[in-house]
């Protein structure tokens, strides 16, 4: 049974069918992170270890810093203190674009430039960090099928996407760019239950398809966390 802990953060192991391989490699490690917004301390001395194959759920009430945590891990927020290590290398030794090509953050409310869904999916393949990689046409169709969409969806304008459709495009795009770690900020918040299950299946399948992948998934939905996470981190709101 999950419960909010009285300390500001707490890890719990969730029961899971099957076991991850014995002591897999550490992919992402945060140590001594502190974060302060004006005079409010959101967390101090924060520690987190994400191993290959791991599926970490993060929960906590609004304002507890879930989004901020993911943004910090994605390198979108300056580190106020502490250290992040990815793939045995400190974040300060990574070029940020190269790091973010492998540790990909999917925001809760994705935003798009004007254009078609296909253009939005192709955009990251024009970035220098990924230029040598071709656009995986076949995989796009396969992923769209997984979410119950056909190829006509690719021609839709991003300005006209509903909140749920936008989340689908964001998740599909994140999977296409072949990251090692996915940081998912409530990726199914605006979706109907059928599509929620489809997205969950896609991501869970993605992580289990290769031993060197992992994700962190924030959610308010307890049953969902039980389905998609094997470890749970509960963030408490700052006092």
């Amino acid at each position, binding site marked *: 049974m999950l419960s909010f802990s009285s300390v500001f953060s707490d890890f719990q192991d969730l029961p899971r069918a099957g076991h991850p391989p014995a002591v897999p490699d550490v992919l992402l490690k945060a140590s001594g992170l502190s974060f302060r917004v004006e005079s409010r301390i959101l967390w101090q001395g924060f520690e987190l270890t994400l191993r290959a194959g791991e599926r970490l759920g993060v929960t906590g009430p609004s304002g507890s810093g879930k989004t901020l945590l993911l943004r910090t891990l994605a390198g*979108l927020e300056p580190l106020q203190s502490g250290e992040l290590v990815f793939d045995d290398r400190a974040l300060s030794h990574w070029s940020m674009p190269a790091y973010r090509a492998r540790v*990909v953050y999917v925001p809760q409310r994705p935003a798009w430039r004007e254009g078609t869904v296909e253009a939005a999916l192709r*955009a990251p393949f024009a970035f220098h960090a990924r230029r040598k990689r071709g656009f995986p046409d076949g995989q796009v169709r396969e992923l769209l099928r997984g979410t119950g969409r056909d190829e006509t969806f690719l021609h839709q304008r991003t300005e006209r996407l509903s909140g749920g459709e936008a989340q689908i495009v964001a998740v599909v*795009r*994140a999977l296409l760019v072949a990251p090692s770690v996915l940081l998912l900020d409530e990726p199914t918040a605006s979706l109907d239950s059928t599509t929620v299950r489809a997205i969950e299946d896609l991501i869970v399948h993605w992580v289990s398809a290769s031993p060197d992948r992992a994700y962190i998934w924030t959610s308010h939905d307890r049953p969902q966390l039980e389905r998609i996470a094997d470890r749970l981190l509960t963030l408490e709101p700052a006092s």
Partner: protein
Amino acid sequence: MNTDYLSLSNAQLALAATLILINVGISVWLRLGLAQSLLVASARMLVQLILVGFILQSVFELKTPLPVVGIGLVMSALAGIAAVRRTGRRFVGVYRDSMITILGSAFVVTGAGVLGIVDVSPWYAPQYTIPLLGMVLGNILTGVSLALDRFMEGIARETDIIENDLALGATRWEAAHPLIRTSLRTGMIPTINAMMVMGVVSLPGMMTGQLLAGVAPADAARYQIVIMFMIAAATALGTLGVILLAFRRLFNDRHQLCAGLLHTSERGATKW
């Protein structure tokens, strides 16, 4: 100095002012709400130009370069401040960035024009340098304020889009590039539009002035061409400079967007 022109008396100025007064009357009659701004603007223009006429008279008699350069520096600094005051947002250092780029681009281009093209002697001859610098500055000011305003508005409105790109491995340059392009185009539009129709729809002010002063039309046109190239080059340089400086302030070298550094100006954009 060429005296082959008609000098205007105070009575003639007053006659010209009646043109505005007629419009003020129409505005009051139809309750258009334009009367006050029209009167204030006319009065400001009148006072400013009469003053500048007196000041220039003494400036043109300067025989040493230092005061001329000093006046140029003051003009550039004022243009730098005015450019920022026309924008709706600010960040720490924006005034410095604006002044540095406007000063740099105006001095480089006016310097090249005065020394390399028009070949003025002595090089600081205020009759040439001050009006040329003024024209160049006026245009850079417009370009810089438009570009800067578009860039800062874009950062504020498209924060999510830009961070989406950064989160997917874009460099700060890749993520900001579409906005940088749009901002530079916005800054250059008035200059490009002006060049497009110049001589066809409108005769530029400087050329008109030279024609009224009795300069041969072909010579006046040549002067105008040189001036327009100088204006276009300086505006392009100034807008690019200010946008690059703003880019470096709002995106740090860890490829993070620091949108929190932007704040709206307390009084909003002022138009002067």
